[in-house]
């Protein structure tokens, strides 16, 4: 192991900047269905690196607006694709990061709110779109989106919270729906959503201790974190696990130095970008979550990130605090 690992900030900025210039790669086209999410990951990574201006603001906003699905409401991940709660949150996060939520017309804003609320089911859960897949990821998408728009209300929040609490498991984790196995990413969506709507007090002290215990057991001897027992470490869990620990104020229950080393070893030192684990292919998803993890731990002079929203604190401090 090299004795002094460092974060290659400039390389990462160049890597993210290069992503939209790869039209001659097949992969570029194969990932259109994730484009809006990708822009959010890239922009957030750049924000953490204090290099937001790398993207042209006007172009990005224009692209975001071109993804709006006027038929069903909400944002699609790419023009002419379909609105979904996953891409809707990304669209709103990008606009909020640019402080330009008012770029949405009043009509579209209303459509968007209707789309989000319209996907809530009688048991408080959310489907991602009209085809019925239910997942606590979508509960998070919906509550975070409504919070960004300043449109949370108890008729939506209360049943949503009841549903999330039903996804709590005996081991101290949360799953994708009641009865589903605990998974670090689902723990983030559940705790993040509870934090956003200010309902963490619905968890008992005992539950918080159990959650903290389960989360800190995700750290493996090599320093990286895994998503479930007996699975390999992966840089993206630097975010899912750490943000969850931060939300319950137990961030230091894992070892920072070791995790930092794992993230830094997963960098591509030549081309920039961060991969899921050392020596694998990099992507923008692992790049942002690696950086976000480092930011939460306070390393490398990164811009501070909000663990519940996964956006810079400077942006989220402007959001109205629920209950309004």
């Amino acid at each position, binding site marked *: 192991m090299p004795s002094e690992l460092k974060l290659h900030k400039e390389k990462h900025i160049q890597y993210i900047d290069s992503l939209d210039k790869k039209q001659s790669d097949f992969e570029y086209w194969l990932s259109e*269905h994730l484009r809006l999410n990708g822009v959010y990951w890239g922009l957030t990574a750049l924000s953490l690196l204090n290099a937001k201006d790398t993207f042209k603001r006007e172009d990005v906003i224009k692209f975001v607006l071109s993804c709006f699905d006027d038929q069903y409401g909400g944002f699609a991940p790419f023009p*002419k*694709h379909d609105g*979904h709660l996953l891409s809707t949150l990304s669209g709103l996060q990008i606009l909020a990061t640019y402080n330009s939520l008012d770029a949405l017309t009043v009509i579209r804003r209303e459509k968007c709110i209707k789309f989000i609320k319209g996907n809530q089911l009688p048991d408080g859960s959310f489907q991602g779109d009209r085809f*019925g897949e239910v997942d606590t990821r979508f509960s998070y998408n919906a509550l975070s989106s409504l919070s960004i728009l300043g449109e949370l209300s108890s008729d939506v929040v209360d049943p949503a919270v009841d549903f999330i609490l039903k996804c709590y498991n005996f081991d101290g984790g949360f799953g994708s729906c009641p009865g589903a196995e*605990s998974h670090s990413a689902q723990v983030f969506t559940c705790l993040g959503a509870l934090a956003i709507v200010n309902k963490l007090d619905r968890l008992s002290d005992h539950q918080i201790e159990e959650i903290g215990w389960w989360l*800190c057991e995700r750290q493996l001897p090599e320093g990286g974190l895994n998503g479930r027992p007996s699975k390999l470490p992966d840089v993206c869990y630097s975010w899912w696990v750490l943000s969850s620990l931060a939300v319950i104020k137990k961030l230091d229950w894992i070892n920072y130095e070791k995790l930092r080393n794992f993230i830094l070893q997963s960098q591509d030192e030549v081309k920039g970008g961060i*991969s899921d684990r050392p020596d*694998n292919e990099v992507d923008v998803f692992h790049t942002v979550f690696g950086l976000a993890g480092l930011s939460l731990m306070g390393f490398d002079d990164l811009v501070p990130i909000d663990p519940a929203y996964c956006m810079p604190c400077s942006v989220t401090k402007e959001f109205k605090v629920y209950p309004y």
Partner: protein
Amino acid sequence: MHGVKRRQWNQELLEQKKLNDAKNINNYRRLTSTILGLKEKKEYSLDNLQKSKELLKINPEFNAVWNFRRDSIIALKEQLEAKFWEEELDFVMAELKIYPKVYWIWGHRVWVLNNYPGSPVSIWKRELLIVSKLLELDARNYHGWHYRRIVISSIENRTGESMDKEEFEYSSNKINNNISNFSAWHQRANMIPAMFANNEIEDKKKFIDDELKYITNAMYTDAEDQSVWIYIKWFLNSDIVSNTYTTEEYVKMIDDVKQNILIINQDDLDFSGKENAWCLKMLIVIEEISKRFGSQEECRTQEYVKKLIEIDPLRKNRYLHLRNKT
């Protein structure tokens, strides 16, 4: 991207990739533009269904195309022959075998089964065999287990009969194959309370006795594995145990488990010169339970915590927290 090795590209490989990519991009963009055009105009036909299949084979994550496919199926429902539904399930299965972790494919399969004419219990029962096969290929597939629970609940809704017992036995099989399969332990921890609540167990005390033997055996089999310990932690604290056993039996059980853990820990110490971190963590849990039952034994949590800080330094701050708490 998960689990893809970083490659070093030389000039020759790059040229080759460029050529291949150019061809693929051309075909893909042409197909995409055709399908999205048809989708916009809501042109639903058997021909177009076929075209969407071609595109999904190239990119199974293209959600909007799955949506187009579903909207087409809804529109054409009256014209579709019985064999269409079987072919659709075959197509989805072929995709799942190549891409077992793509949410959209699993979602489409559930949709197809729900919309299958009559959605009879027979297709769901067949599905249970299929998902069991898939879980043989990857016994931890998160999507697979989730899907299995959807299938089970569909069968239960259609027959009105609980499958808790079968699922409990399924969890035993999976654990017997691989004791570290936490997905199976999870399923087990959900099935047992359900079986108790629905009165599906004749001799509850015998059931608990047997389960205790099972987990005792498990902790001796792999004392390093957290899956087993997480389950044991749940079991010892669970209402089903404390409600079934008398206080005397319960206290004795806790003490038996404790003695076994002490033996395992001592074995580890003799063998490797190091105590077993999970044994120590469990001893702390057991002391908490014993305290609730008014145990007069000397509390050794502080000593365990001190050792844990040394042998499991990653989680040092949790142990410091425990030390300050007691």
